[in-house]
């Protein structure tokens, strides 16, 4: 299948990331998870290799590669450590890409190069305590005062929050008493009035930094507004499909990591005088895992490829994200089953993948929301809308 989507450069990238992951990430992944430690040194190494700006144009300091390359890299990183992968993915598709897509030339020149080089980490704050799936319920308010906005409110569950130099946040925009709808700002995280909550203690993605953020009379210059508020902004959010492709790719990687361990174990473990893969019940599990991983990989690379062709991929990205994340949950569950009791203890490193899988069905839009998006899109075709 690789031959369908990969150029020589993609193959070289994948080989490099796999080598890097095998040598630098895998040996410390269990420990990073255990102590919930942010992988700062790895991020610096990844920055040097160009991995923190894969799909960002060269003239803005990125590697200028395509979405297929980006998805392939997330997949390989995810196969070793989901926390490292989501750190890179959230930084790229949520922290950096929105500025590339919606920023003015001035904003791009100012904010993108340090993000694309990985010198600075990016984050995206959309979710609020009372506005998750229902992003329209955003309560954060930015009130215009002269050439500035005063922001009050807060965000929750923000990936990279404690490590980021730049935060893209969404807020209601109030101008002259009028609510213009939801818009966004690019905010350096050292802005006064921006306060961080403590690191969330999580079931998975434990080395990734997730926090609540508070805005108390935070003043930002009007020129930091990203895009235009209101209806146009909703369209903009919909086109942020990179995040869904990231999670789809990360799901494939997470499933692969667990599957590879289960496959190896099934050829080593003996019961009733046989290697356990010789029991059909185990062999069938492995067959299903391999088949579903392949299917998810195809959906993911196809969506990435379509994005690179400049096509609308709202439906395809949702399908890839939905199928791949649910496949990852199932595959990691079955991987534990194949290892039996050894799967349940930390030493065998399969339960880490299981814990890392659950969030994939929640973040970047829950499975329920993906189904909503897909059904809306397919009904549209019948109704001729």
């Amino acid at each position, binding site marked *: 299948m690789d031959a369908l989507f990969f150029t020589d450069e993609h193959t070289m*990238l994948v080989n*490099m990331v796999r080598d890097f992951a095998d040598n630098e990430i895998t040996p410390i992944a269990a420990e990073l998870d255990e102590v919930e430690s942010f992988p700062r040194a790895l991020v610096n190494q990844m920055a040097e290799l160009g991995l923190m700006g894969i799909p960002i144009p060269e003239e803005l300091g990125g590697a200028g590669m395509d979405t297929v390359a980006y998805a392939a890299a997330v997949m390989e990183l995810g196969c070793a450590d989901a926390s490292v992968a989501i750190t890179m993915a959230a930084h790229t598709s949520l922290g950096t890409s929105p500025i590339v897509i919606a920023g003015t030339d001035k904003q791009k020149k100012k904010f993108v190069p340090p993000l694309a080089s990985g010198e600075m980490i990016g984050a995206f704050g959309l979710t609020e305590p009372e506005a998750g799936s229902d992003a329209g319920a955003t309560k954060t308010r930015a009130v215009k005062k002269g050439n500035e906005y005063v922001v009050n409110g807060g965000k929750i569950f923000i990936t990279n929050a404690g490590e980021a130099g730049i935060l893209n946040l969404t807020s209601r925009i109030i101008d002259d008493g009028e609510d213009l709808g939801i818009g966004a700002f690019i905010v350096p995280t050292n802005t006064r009035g921006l306060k961080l909550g403590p690191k969330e203690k999580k079931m998975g993605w434990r080395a990734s930094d997730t926090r609540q953020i508070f805005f108390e009379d935070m003043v930002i210059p009007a020129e930091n507004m990203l895009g235009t508020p209101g209806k146009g902004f909703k369209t903009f959010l919909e086109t942020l499909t990179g995040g869904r492709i990231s999670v789809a790719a990360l799901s494939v990687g997470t499933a692969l990591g667990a599957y590879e361990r289960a496959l190896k174990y099934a050829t080593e473990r003996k019961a009733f005088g046989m290697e356990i893969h010789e029991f059909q019940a185990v062999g069938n599990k492995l067959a299903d895992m391999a088949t579903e991983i392949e299917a998810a990989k195809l959906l993911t690379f196809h969506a990435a490829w379509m994005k690179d062709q400049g096509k609308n991929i709202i439906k395809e990205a949702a399908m890839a994200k939905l199928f791949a994340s649910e496949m990852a949950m199932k595959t990691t569950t079955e991987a534990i089953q194949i290892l039996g009791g050894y799967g349940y203890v930390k030493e065998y490193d399969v339960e880490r993948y299981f814990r890392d899988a659950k969030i994939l069905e929640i973040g970047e839009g829950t499975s329920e929301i993906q189904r909503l998006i897909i059904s809306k899109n397919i009904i549209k075709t019948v109704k001729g809308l």
Partner: protein
Amino acid sequence: MKIAVLVKQVPGAESPLPIHSNQKWVDEDAVAYVMNESDNYALEEALQIKEANSEGEVVVISLGPDRIQKVIREALAKGADRAIHIQIDTVGAIDPLATASHFADALKEENFDLIFSGLQSDDFGMAQTGVIIGEMLGMATASLVMAIETGGGKIKVKRELEAGWFQWVSLSLPASLTIQSGLNTPRYPSLKGIMGAKKKEIKVVTPNPVEANQSLEKIYVPHSDKQTVMIEGSVDQMVEKLIHTFRNDIKVL
């Protein structure tokens, strides 16, 4: 400093190695190829020397069929400036003298200051190519190099000897060195390097035929029998029987 680095594409340590039905070599279609381990260190050493002197050129050179362009590109992505591909079918080619003469032909016009090769290839493990090339081109030669110091038109190298012993030797330039794994930390190719590699030159040359004095007759997986022989008697008798078995039956003494 103008440095040539020999890189070879070899089957990876974890690659499947099914034997081809003609029993002349493995089935190449099923093999996952990688850059020979010690060549990777040789390349890194060359790149570091170039970077430390902030001038010079690193040229990678490889011998084999089209598939080897994969390791050539990898070397270019890591930072080599250009490449020479000696186009030849290498199935069953195991004569180091023939291999070395192809390299020597391709290298002699270029007047390299240094020629680096890996200590040995992970497939055949001859450990001769770099040494023979040095001899053919009349260069100073050192094998098993663990460290290199350059300066003043000479180089000093640390060679690995037996049993944890080392030796520092001075060589005049030009020199051919075979590099031992572990003397540096090979880099990963950066995305910039990967994207830039396709713009770099790979010169493809067809070698003059050379008669090989050594060739592969047949490869096979050794047959193993499960036979248990109990040796009994006094300690002296058992030792004597054991030595007899080692010498005459298994022929390992």
